[in-house]
């Protein structure tokens, strides 16, 4: 699964996710990637999120939208909300994987609860970073 999230100079957010699914998946099986609120979500008031991992669990916990809900209703920061969803909601319920997320201030977080996640980020300052493991 691949994905991208961005905050532009006007503070607008967007998210995109694309996948071939799991190797040897059952034909017709759909994971979280195309499910808005599970694998992909964006709202300028909170965050943009793109997920990757064990799709069924991400769907059951509406992972992407849950981060926005925590920010909106509990006043959590992007990082705190994303960390809770990845490490607690997903990580303690057989939902291995991770996500990338950005808020309207341009803050980025890339949490995951498995061995590694192929990920990268760049900011307006031109700081490129690509990572696989921790």
């Amino acid at each position, binding site marked *: 699964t691949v994905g991208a999230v961005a905050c532009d100079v006007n503070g607008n957010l967007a998210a995109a996710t694309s996948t071939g699914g799991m190797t040897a998946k059952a034909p017709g099986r759909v994971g979280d990637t195309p499910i808005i609120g599970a694998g992909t979500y964006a709202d300028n008031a909170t965050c943009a999120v793109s997920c*990757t991992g064990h799709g069924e669990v991400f769907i059951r916990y509406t992972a992407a939208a849950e981060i926005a809900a925590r920010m909106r209703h509990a006043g959590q920061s992007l990082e705190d909300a994303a960390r809770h969803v990845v490490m607690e909601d997903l990580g303690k319920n057989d939902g291995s994987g991770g996500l990338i997320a950005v808020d309207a201030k341009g803050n980025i977080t890339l949490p995951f609860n498995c061995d590694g996640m192929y990920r990268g980020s760049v900011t*307006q300052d031109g700081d490129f970073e690509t990572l*696989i493991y921790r």
Partner: protein
Amino acid sequence: MSKFSLAVHGGAGTILPKNLTPALEAGYHAGLRRALEVGQEILAKGGSAMDAVTASVCALEDEPLFNSGRGAVFTTEGVQEMDASVMDGRNRMAGAVSGIFGPRNPIRAARAVMENTDHVMLIGPNALKVARDAGLPFEDAAYFFTQERWDALQSTMKMRAEGIEDNDPARRHG
């Protein structure tokens, strides 16, 4: 004015850490970097977040190392099924496609659903029709095929046939 930022992820299907060679690892870093660069170029010129994420994901879909578009994994029936979605934070507009095969960039098909229909998600022939009507490029099976993904399918099917349990969560990832 805000400061722009962009993040990407690029999953590789079933590849376990022990199988990740230095050359392969360098390829993943390069692919991620290219995806960041195309999105960053758009954002640096004042372009929209939606255009940036679309371009970045297209770059990842075009790179066979990653599991989407060209290089997508295979189902138990030896075919490829692709899913994609986009969401615009300005207005909560969203578009998604599922179970499709043909468009070179499924993410652009998802965006076409968002921009050209009243719907959020389309599957099957109607999703492909929206992509065709939008003028998106299509590719045949040879374009999307990669030997590595085919070998991964055979390996997984063999394990299942032999009743070997593999609880490695990496196998459940896209």
